[in-house]
């Protein structure tokens, strides 16, 4: 009897300990999630309030959905124009990075030629050097090429900045694709380029998606180069526009919250819908590097 009694008791103790640990884990995780999430939620809620309501009712829901702040942010502060600029710059740099990196990475992965290793190392070694370090010579290059205050002023350095990691990730992926596939395509009469475009690239979709997300988020959020190369307000990207908006209207919190919510909500919606791809896209550089 005794011999039978002990095991259930002990396992009950183990179960209780586990439940306690689970409860503590949930508590800690929830506190962290609130600290991360609440400021964003509160900012969106406040964007619908008047300044008076923000003081009198800082915690609750807005009494009614007031769009005056948004009207101001959209019409006076040109937030949609900044978003369009950001979209153009980010999309163009994604396209350029993906195309240039895919061709280069495929050559590094499959062709045998004398400077394969050294050229690849040139890209790989500069993975570590932060872009801001060479801001002054970059400024000289940009002004000599008359790129200041154009979209290219940002598209080209963003592309150059994204190439090392993109080539690194794509090369590893191309190397993992069995040779037989491109050989078969060659036997069927494809040229090297055709077999790359029609057979290899479609297989590499996951790696291309990783590079796309990584490059898009980095370009969309970039601030330092935009601050230095863009001065015309009609050419400003979103981070730069938000910063100058805050600089001019720092007292008008309602306007600022509306502007920030306009900038942030689309990004967060896309992120939540595709969180798996986003998280792997943004961390794969660190995990493979």
């Amino acid at each position, binding site marked *: 009897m005794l011999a039978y009694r002990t095991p259930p008791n002990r396992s009950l103790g183990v179960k209780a300990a586990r439940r306690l640990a689970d409860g503590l884990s949930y508590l800690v995780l929830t506190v962290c999630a609130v600290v991360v999430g609440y*400021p964003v939620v509160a900012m969106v809620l406040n964007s619908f309030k008047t300044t008076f309501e923000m003081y009198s009712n800082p915690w609750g829901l807005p009494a009614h959905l007031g769009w005056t702040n948004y009207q101001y942010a959209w019409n006076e502060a040109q937030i949609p124009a900044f978003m369009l600029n950001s979209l153009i710059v980010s999309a163009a740099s994604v396209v350029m990075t993906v195309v240039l990196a895919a061709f280069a990475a495929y050559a590094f992965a499959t062709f045998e030629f004398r400077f394969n290793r050294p050229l690849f190392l040139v890209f790989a070694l500069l993975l570590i050097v*932060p872009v801001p370090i060479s801001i*002054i010579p970059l400024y*000289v*290059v940009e002004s000599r090429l008359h790129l200041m205050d154009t979209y290219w002023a940002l598209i080209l350095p963003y592309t150059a900045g994204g*190439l090392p990691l993109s080539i690194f990730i794509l090369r590893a992926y191309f190397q993992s694709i069995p040779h037989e596939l491109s050989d078969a395509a060659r036997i069927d009469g494809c040229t090297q380029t055709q077999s790359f475009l029609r057979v290899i690239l479609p297989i590499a979709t996951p790696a291309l998606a990783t590079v796309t997300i990584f490059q898009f988020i980095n370009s969309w959020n970039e601030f*330092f180069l935009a601050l230095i190369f863009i001065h015309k307000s009609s050419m400003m990207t979103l981070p730069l526009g*938000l910063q100058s908006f805050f600089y001019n209207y720092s007292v008008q919190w309602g306007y600022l919250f509306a502007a920030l919510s306009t900038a942030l909500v689309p*990004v967060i919606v896309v992120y939540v819908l595709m969180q798996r791809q986003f998280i792997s896209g943004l961390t794969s550089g*660190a995990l493979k590097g």
Partner: protein
Amino acid sequence: MASTTITSKQTPRWRRNNPYVWIAPALLVFGVFTLLPLAGGLAIGFFSWNGFQAPQWVGLDNFTRVFQDQGFWQSLEHNLIYGVATVVGKLVLAVCLAVLLNRSLRGQTVFRTILFMPVVMSFVVVGLIWNWIYNYNFGLLNTVLGLVGLGAWKQDWLGNTSFALGALIVVDIWKWFGFHMVIYLAGLQSIPNELYESARIDGANSRQSFRHITLPLLLPVTMINVLLATAGAFTVFDLVYVMTDGGPVKATDVAMVHIYTEAFQFNQFGYAAAMSYVLLVLISVVSLVLMRLLRQERYF
């Protein structure tokens, strides 16, 4: 065998060279916008140049001036404090939360999605949100302090020289710990379960197996995390520029803000380029030392 020789002989010359054709476009953009500036920066460092008049050769003057510039070394000291505090803060928080998430709780994905969210946001947006949180009259932080009866602790967080740098450090940790957490999570999931089982059979309790299995096996991942976070801390600009612009009274002046001010407000291009190069050398040295330290630890 014979057929391959024939085809390679028949291949026209441009086709045999074609790897370079595939690489050339990437190399061109990379060369003009990364390699050229990197080499040119060193050259500019040897000139006195205000961006308008012809540059004048000054030899090593700019570099000797960097070593005498107290403002620059003070800003580097801020980077050092910032680096140590953010690296420790991010990694401790990240390891703990990754271990909790790795216990296969329900809702794991929801927590991971929320905690990673700030990584997707730009530093400008994050900085502006926290400008509001730290606002004296109106900010979330002082309001919360008032609510829980700590009204005496209210501060003008960004306007006070003794709190401003710490306030920025908190924001940086807030933005990035989710990133390091996901990397730790990947590291944890790569540890085979058999190790824990055999440790349990040998009588190890959970704390012992964390100390002697989990932590040592997380060292490679830790090295990546430390290097990334350190490089970030030494080149931090956006957050500081948006929130304090180096103030109050230079209390949050960091190296990149210092370099930016010298270059684009005082037009000291040669001097700023020299400072950038000193910063690059310092970052490389720090990274190498960290790699050495962490690599030695691996042979436990």
